[in-house]
């Protein structure tokens, strides 16, 4: 059994992450032309997920987890992330998100977590529903009209 670790985002990890490419329809998560410097800037809230094999994914906390077009307020901390493409669909994502949430609780003490997920991404919706999130609404993204759902999980004070 492997441990999942959260460590600071390094430039090497960031370079690797912006190079990740997912098969359609998940290619909307490709960071094509992404700037590794954005990921390493602590203000943007990106953290690396690793295990004994190296980088396996990332988690982010803050406004970069929002999708333009959605109706957001300050009542919750947005979170998101990604998994190395070759690890998707193997049940690792749930542990990666769970690890991120535990870390986020410990570090940021939010009143609630909020995630925004493309409506077509049933796989991710199942995972976050299992982790206690509830959908509170949907909206079309400003960029391309694609439908996204907003999910909330209140946290114990």
């Amino acid at each position, binding site marked *: *059994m*492997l*441990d*999942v*670790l*959260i*460590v*600071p985002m*390094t*430039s*090497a990890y960031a*370079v690797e992450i912006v190079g990740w490419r997912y098969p359609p329809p998940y290619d909307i998560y490709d960071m094509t032309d992404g700037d590794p410097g954005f990921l*390493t800037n602590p203000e943007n809230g990106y*953290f*690396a997920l*690793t*295990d*004994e*094999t*190296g980088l396996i994914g990332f988690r982010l906390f803050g406004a970069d987890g929002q999708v333009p077009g959605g109706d957001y307020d300050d009542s919750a901390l947005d979170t998101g992330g990604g998994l190395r493409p070759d690890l998707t669909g*193997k*049940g*690792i994502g749930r*542990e990666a998100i*769970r*690890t991120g949430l*535990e*870390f986020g609780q*410990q*570090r940021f003490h939010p009143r609630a977590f909020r995630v925004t997920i493309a409506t077509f991404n049933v796989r991710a919706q199942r995972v976050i529903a299992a982790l206690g999130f509830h959908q509170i609404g949907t909206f079309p993204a400003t960029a391309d009209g694609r439908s996204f759902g907003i999910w909330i999980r209140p946290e114990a004070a």
Partner: protein
Amino acid sequence: MLSRVEPMSAETAAAITWWYDLGALAGDLVLAARGEQGRIWRLQTSRGSWAVKELLFPVEEAQAARDVEFQLAARSAGIPLPMPRRTRDGQVVLPADRAAAARAIRVYQWADLAPDQVVTPAEVGAVTASLHLLEREAEPGPVEAWFSEPLGESAWADLLDDARRGGAPWEAALGRWLPDLIALDGAVSPPDPARTMTCHRDINIENIRCSADGGVVVLDWENCGPAEPARELATVICDLATELSPDAAQAGYAAYLASEGPERLDSVGDFAMAAAAQGHLLQFYSRRALDAGESAENKTRSAKRLHDMLSQPLTLAWAGYLLDLIGSQAALLYRRQHCYFVVVLPAASV
């Protein structure tokens, strides 16, 4: 040991002074130190004191010019180092025939060191961070085998056989560590060209020294070349742990982070460069120590280095221990234990 070395002639001193435009000669070349790659002589002229490095191995001018360029960039960024000199015709290396010497020469401004004073781990960490923050050309070329390739199981076995045949005093220690050293080879993966940059590649407490006028001075830049900075950081942490203490490694890493060093150590793979270099160094010293044609000075030196290195070599366990040590302090932000299994499918099913 040093007194047995053939002195440099007055003719050599005069040639060096003229070629490097050092003013008027004001004394003989005095032997000051001996490293693996060269002997250091001190030369006094009307323009000051100079470190004359007698190169024990051939050095290409192009390589020397590259390391000078890196040194100048580091110096411009505020990293203290002895200023390298060029000859009147712009060369870094003065060929042996021009120097009227047995070997080629390089010259640096002399740096007065504080005697018997060792740098702190925090100073080593801070200097390493400064070096990693330098703006440098990415992908400066392939990383040489010395820093990137494992020795390989058969070479390790040969090393032990040679030690047995030669009745070497390090045979027992090498035999004891051999399975661990071979296992460590498995952690040596090729460097990622996208992550390589020009690095010093020889940062240790012998090359970061306390300056007589306060602060530190960084020496021995001739090994600089392409490497992954994270892997260089791992070699620094290893060196601090073995040369000083695990606490020193922890303090050095903390200082690196506090100085905004951009790299993080989080997997055994980060120790690939340290592992590769360790293997090649052990092989180098072993061959040298057992070579009947080698000088007594070199054989003694090499045997001592083998003894020191084999008292606590880098192994997977040691790398894991160092990772835990530094991870518990700063790099590791959160650990979720026993999360998932890795299922390895047989190749036919992939």
